[in-house]
């Protein structure tokens, strides 16, 4: 069995209640941090642990914390980004649903480290039932003296609130999240200034993913020195992976960084291989925004070494032969699936979710979506494929926020690795319309 740091007690009945959580070692990190450590000690501990942000970009959490400006007399805020909306990613949902106290515990310790006296969990609007779970857990934590004034007699005050979003993917971008929390339209802000200097209501703010904040708990409990021993040199610790697609056993798994991709897909402990004895065709290792990998690059790197589940190994070779760990949305395609149709589906998602603020993303995502829609429906031609490649090159890097890049990368990678499939759609329009993607017979496939 791989080592579990976050999901260790997930199967204990009643773990979502304070008492059971406390019995299984809950809130020990709060006691340790507030009683024996200074805020800077906590920041240094997280820095030394090498924890990288679990939300997608993989930016070192400790470094993000150390950038926080600390002017006198200005409040600071910690925001938890629970606006998990990436297609293929559902790890935060599982964690918050089952272990709400783990997140609250992580937020208390992190708020203490950053000197924040008011923290928010910004949760996506579709997760309404989790909002209730969290609010119940927060009420318990208040009742037991872990939230509120003078926590554990340390003199540290913390209020924790949950704020629901309105169901926009863009509000997972940290500055759009801040705008939305302020009650405005969720448009990303221009950077600089970064939130660490000017964030929520103009005050220094840190925005972290749910899993990053939860991981602070085991780091404080076991110490950074112990934590870095888990995983690989550049990707310490464990990571939640939400595996989906044509797998025998899809689901949320906690893996130690550095197990091989082959073991994760085919191992008995994990996904147990591809469903219905099919062959694997492609893999998206980190949620819909990251480049797709073709079969020959999934388990092996271009250099012939094994590909591992870690930040550095998955991005080995750059975008030419690699991808990204991203948010851990592990999407597997079997041989019946169509990369072209899937790319259209993602393009449709990004066109729908673009905020409409800056021109390349607003116009470009819609354009790509339309061209792909035409190709999937057998009305494409060869120059459309080059046109697509050109459009995404022109969106990438020219937008305010990373949504433009996230929309461009999957299309670019699909054309890079599966160009012949795009050509097949153009050359066989009739067959393309009849294709049924391994679904039940008579399922309509036109879109």
């Amino acid at each position, binding site marked *: 069995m791989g080592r579990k740091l976050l999901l260790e007690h997930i199967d204990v009945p009643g773990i979502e209640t304070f008492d059971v959580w406390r019995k299984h070692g809950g809130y020990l990190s709060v006691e340790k941090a507030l009683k024996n450590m200074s805020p800077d000690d906590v920041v240094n501990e997280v820095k030394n642990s090498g924890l990288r942000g679990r939300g997608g970009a993989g930016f070192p959490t400790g470094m993000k914390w150390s950038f926080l400006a600390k002017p006198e007399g200005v409040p600071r805020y910690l925001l938890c980004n629970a606006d998990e909306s990436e297609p293929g990613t559902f790890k935060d949902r599982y964690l918050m649903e089952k272990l709400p106290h783990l997140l609250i515990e992580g937020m208390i310790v992190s708020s203490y480290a950053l000197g924040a006296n008011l923290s928010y969990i910004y949760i996506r609007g579709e997760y309404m039932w989790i909002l209730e779970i969290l609010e119940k857990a927060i009420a318990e934590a208040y009742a037991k003296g872990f939230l509120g004034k003078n926590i554990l007699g340390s003199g540290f005050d913390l209020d924790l609130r949950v704020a629901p979003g309105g169901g926009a993917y863009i509000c997972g971008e940290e500055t759009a999240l801040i705008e939305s929390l302020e009650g405005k339209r969720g448009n990303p802000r221009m950077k600089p200034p970064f939130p660490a200097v000017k964030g929520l209501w103009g005050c220094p703010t840190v925005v972290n993913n749910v899993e990053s904040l939860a991981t602070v708990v085991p780091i404080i409990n076991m110490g950074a020195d112990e934590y870095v021993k888990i995983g690989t040199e550049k990707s310490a610790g464990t990571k939640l992976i939400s595996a989906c697609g044509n797998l025998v056993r899809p689901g949320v798994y906690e893996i130690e960084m550095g197990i091989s991709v082959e073991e994760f897909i085919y191992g008995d402990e994990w996904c147990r291989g591809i469903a219905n004895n099919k062959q694997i065709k492609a893999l998206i290792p980190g949620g819909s925004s990251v480049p797709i990998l073709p079969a020959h690059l999934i388990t092996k790197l271009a250099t012939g070494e094994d590909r591992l589940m870690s930040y550095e190994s998955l991005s080995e070779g750059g975008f030419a032969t690699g991808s990204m760990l991203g948010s851990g949305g592990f999407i597997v395609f079997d041989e019946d699936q169509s990369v072209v149709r899937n790319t259209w589906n993602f393009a449709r998602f990004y066109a729908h979710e673009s*905020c*409409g603020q800056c*021109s*390349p993303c607003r116009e470009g995502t*819609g354009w790509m979506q339309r061209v792909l829609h035409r190709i999937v429906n057998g009305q494409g031609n060869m120059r459309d494929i080059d046109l697509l490649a050109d459009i995404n090159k022109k969106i990438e890097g020219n937008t305010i926020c990373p949504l433009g890049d996230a929309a461009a990368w999957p299309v670019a990678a699909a054309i890079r690795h599966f160009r012949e499939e795009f050509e097949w759609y153009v050359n066989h329009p009739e067959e393309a319309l009849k294709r049924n993607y391994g679904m039940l017979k008579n399922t309509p496939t036109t879109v």
Partner: protein
Amino acid sequence: MVKVTIDGIEIEVEEGTTILNAARMIGGNVVPPAMCYYSSLEGSGGNCRTCLVEIAEGSTRDPRPMPKLMVSCSTQVQDGMVVKNKTSQRVHENRGAVTEFLLINHPLDCPVCDQAGECHLQDLSFDHGGAGSRFEEEKRTFEPIDIGNKIKLHMNRCILCYRCVKVAEQLTEKRVHGVLHRGEHAEISTYIQKAVESDFSGNMIDVCPVGALTDRTFRFKSRVWFLKPMNATRECKKCPGHATVWMFGEEIYRVTGRKDAYGEIERLDGKTAWICDDCRFETKDPKQWNIEGPRKINRHSVISQNHYEIPNPLKTNVKKSLK
């Protein structure tokens, strides 16, 4: 003061100046086009991405080039920064790309658009647009919305620069218009179709870089290049009364604010001389205005082509050789 080099021209500017404003101090060809930035509207800029420039050297302290193109309207200059605008191939390509993006859903109805002749999108596509379009799809369209009897909203032409939203936010008391929906369906609209009625809402027309917001009292009256722009002033209780009146013969066809070379309303005594709706829509009798004289419109070629001072080629050559 910090030193910055733009297209090989060095200039000293105050700290905190943006690259675009530094370029405007130099003037001429090095100024990147800006469709959404408007210096007197706080928080504007960053949306249209036409002012992207390449930063070849970040600063004296850290001379590394910036990997991405930066928007010059919101990037502040650093000491020793080297910026490439006209001289960068990457900038040309990406500005062309942005122009293409802005045009794909634009109706291209210039022949019937009141803005034609003073449209920034026309200027931009003249400088950076392609000869044809690669967009074969049906263009996105919007249901027309009536926002009152003074201002005509033509959402299909809009490039979502957000300037008018900032005008509504910053100049008028009750904001009744903003942006609805998102992505390519995002549209400027009034809340539940409420008419825009405020003393200064007409300034939306002046800030609009395209023909999305036009003057209903001037609608289809004349092409702008057939009119004589005249500087004029008038006593007004609400505004400085500092305007340009557009005349045809002895008649005033329309009134606008006085715009500078970048399409921005000029400043008067340190304040932007926004004009009120009374001056703009109700005061069309030449007797009500004190007409000072013809106004030169610099940037928009077709309007005042006859007012251009054509430089004497012989003279400039002599000057160059003397140097």
